[in-house]
């Protein structure tokens, strides 16, 4: 059983991360809102509970690795690193600017805390396999987490990696599929439907766990279960809501990379504030 105080703390952090994302995107500018905030709880749990991650020692070779294969959702990772003090909070106002540290997609050459360059979709799991193999060679107990999108699963390379990880019996790798069921131009079932995701991963040799990706306790239990699996990798298929916590963006492909009006921005902040207040009363 996960401690309820821990659950409530992480839920509040998730709301804070979403708030940071909304602030980063701001008014009148395009930003990947939907697929960033669908990861609110998952990223909060990884960065503030599950991963071996010391914000004071971000290059510690024994740290766990966080890879966002769906690199366009990097705003939520920036938010976590801002809350940890790894990225200066002032950067929140200059995302995707020439002078800023925060690029449109993860750029380890420019941004502290980034573990790889991702964003050209379908590549993160392969990078994670390479990290997992290298860490195992060095007999480190670090774990590699790779977050993928469900739309991204149409990339063929991802399935190459899905075959490779079990072949090498990699068990220090946890994949997470952010199954928010919306991709850039519409619902995944209309654009490029990939049925039976769990069965596919199973057939490739993975341990599969399906959870509600917004249920903090359930996600923690899944991550802990994954650590106990030996001899093969685990994938957590997390059912999430694209745009979660911001009513006009929920389940809405328009906010995959949408632009908020002044009014929408205020509404998003008000809704997140209300949620925060609600959680603080718990």
């Amino acid at each position, binding site marked *: 059983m996960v401690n309820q105080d821990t659950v409530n703390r992480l839920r509040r952090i998730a709301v804070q991360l979403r708030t940071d994302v909304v602030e980063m995107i701001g008014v009148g500018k395009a930003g990947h809102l939907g697929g960033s905030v669908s990861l609110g709880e998952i990223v909060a749990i990884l960065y503030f509970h599950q991963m071996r991650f010391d914000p004071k020692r971000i290059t510690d070779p024994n740290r766990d690795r966080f890879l966002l294969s769906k690199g366009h959702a990097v705003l939520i990772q920036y938010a976590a690193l801002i809350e940890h003090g790894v990225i200066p909070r002032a950067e929140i106002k200059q995302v995707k600017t020439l002078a800023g540290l925060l690029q449109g997609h993860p750029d380890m*050459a420019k941004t502290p805390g980034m573990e790889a360059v991702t964003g050209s979709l379908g590549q993160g799991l392969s990078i994670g396999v*390479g990290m997992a193999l290298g860490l195992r060679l060095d007999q480190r107990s670090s774990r590699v987490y790779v977050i993928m999108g469900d739309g991204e699963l149409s990339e063929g390379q991802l399935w190459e990696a899905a075959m490779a990880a079990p072949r090498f019996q990699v068990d220090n790798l946890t994949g997470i599929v952010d199954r928010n069921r919306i991709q850039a131009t519409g619902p995944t079932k209309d654009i490029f439907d990939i049925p039976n995701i769990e069965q596919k991963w199973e057939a490739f040799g993975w341990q599969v766990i399906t959870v509600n990706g917004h249920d903090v306790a359930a996600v923690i239990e899944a991550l802990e279960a994954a650590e106990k699996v030996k001899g093969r990798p685990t994938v957590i298929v997390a059912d999430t809501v694209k745009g979660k916590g911001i009513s006009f963006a929920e389940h809405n492909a328009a906010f995959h990379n949408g632009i908020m009006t002044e009014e929408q921005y205020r509404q998003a902040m008000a809704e997140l504030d209300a949620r925060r207040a609600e959680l603080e009363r718990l």
Partner: protein
Amino acid sequence: MAPVKNLREAYGQGLVALGKQNRNVVALEADLGKSTRSILFQAEFPERYFEMGIAEQNMASTAAGLALVGKIPFMHSFAVFASGRAFDQLRNAVCIPGLNVRICGSSCGLSDFGDGKTHQALEDVAIMRALPGMTVLSPADAIEVAKMMPCVLDWKGPVYLRINRNDLPFVTPESESYHIGKVWKLREGSDAAVFANGIMVSRALEAAEALAKGGVSVRVLNVSTIKPLDRDAIIAHAQGVRAIVTAEEANIIGGLGSAVVEAVRGVRHAPVDFVGVRDSFGASAENYEILLDHYGLTARAVTEAVQRLLATA
């Protein structure tokens, strides 16, 4: 023991030596280990050898992941697949962060003569050269491969290495110390300068010999590092001659010839001509020689290019 003449064999032996020297060296293969000779590494270091199957894209990104945790990965395939099939992976995961991934483009150029155009790499020089931060090497013989390998180990950033499939004549001196980036003068001459690499170095030397008989003095330079190109050295070697010819086993668009002309831009220089494949794919042929003749990658083509330029100079 006489040194091997085969570049792949020299590569495989060199890789094993690096593996002994540094335990962070790892190798990735895409089901061509017998051909690329990465199997020599597998035999010595099975735990550091990853057979990735016929999946070059995953291999390239996996190599990036290994580099990100401190390994020095050497990934192997035929040049056409290593550079083409995995281009986006090399571009994003490897070149943007400047990782120490080494890409062995084996059976480069037309050297896989039997398999034809799908398996022959003529565009690899252009596309690898276009990647910011990518080092591009094209050794001329097995001696040079052997000398290059330790430098490749220590080099910072990604390296693309073109390895010919076949035995090639020895043309580079055994004694000289080696470093990446140097333009090697193999023959002194004053009328023309020929910049060559790979198999075309031996052909340029043959051409120089033939031209000498007619009283034409030709300087032959081995430009085995196409990138980063030593621009000052290229300009210095191009000075004073009345003809400049480049010779390469690659498409002339974007290859060594392009690189040399980029280097001499802005300075007064002699007329330039290219010996190389003229915007064409390869073909299957009975043997390598026939194919090289067919595409004009011959000593005679170099000779004629020098003569043509000198006649108009």
